[in-house]
């Protein structure tokens, strides 16, 4: 896990999530913008997964539990996929809100993942 990249992810996921929630609450159905924000969050998670697999080879090892880290990462990768399908199947304002809730959930999980990898001593 690369720390600056994680902060970059948070800088996308948090405003993206808030944007989706606001747009959903004012009645917007899922659009290219809100779906795109969620897709971007997902894409960055995949990059993070590749980085997490590769980083230990470059000497950047996790300070905490790898098991916990990967449980968070895999769960986080699943969330936007489920929310995205939901938004495709049901095109209502609440699907947009759900996209936002998903992005914010991913942000919380990224924050925890960063703690596990970089902060937590063991």
């Amino acid at each position, binding site marked *: 896990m690369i720390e600056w990249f994680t902060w970059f992810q948070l800088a996308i996921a948090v405003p993206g999530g808030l944007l989706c929630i606001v747009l959903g609450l004012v009645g917007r159905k899922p659009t290219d913008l809100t779906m795109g924000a969620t897709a971007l969050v997902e894409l960055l998670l995949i990059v993070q997964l590749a980085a997490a697999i590769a980083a230990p080879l470059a000497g950047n090892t996790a300070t905490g539990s790898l098991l916990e880290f990967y*449980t968070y990462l895999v769960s986080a990768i699943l*969330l936007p996929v489920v929310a995205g399908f939901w938004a495709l199947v049901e095109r*209502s304002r609440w699907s947009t809100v759900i996209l936002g*809730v*998903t992005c914010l959930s991913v942000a919380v999980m990224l924050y925890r993942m960063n703690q596990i990898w970089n902060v937590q001593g063991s």
Partner: protein
Amino acid sequence: MTKSQTEMTGPANRVSGIGRLLIAVYGVLALAATGRSFVQIVRAFDEAPLAYSLSALAAVVYIVATIALVRRTLLWYRIAWFTIGFELLGVLVVGTLSLVDPALFQHATVWSVYGSGYLFIPLVLPLLGMWWLASHPPTPSRSRA
């Protein structure tokens, strides 16, 4: 209770509108509780069998509650009441015990300190769920429409 009855139905049922959001949040919490108990049990079940068993039980209850909210038959409606009631009881009892007697729950569960590790969502969600169930009883004639 077939899939076709419970999915893709019209707006006049329990899974419409803001109820979708409730289900989504329940789904996320079910995932969070499952992930956590998976890690705890795989890593060191022996350390705290009580707390970790409770984590696993909480995870299962959240999963069942999520399913029960999606399905709209009378049976699932009762299951939803039961599981959500159980969650409220769990978060109140475990939350209180974790404050009164911390030694009992040295290892965190989803319900410790009223779910403070999860932004108190485990405390608020059952109340929202009960409000939702109370205001949206199953109406078989309408839900088939």
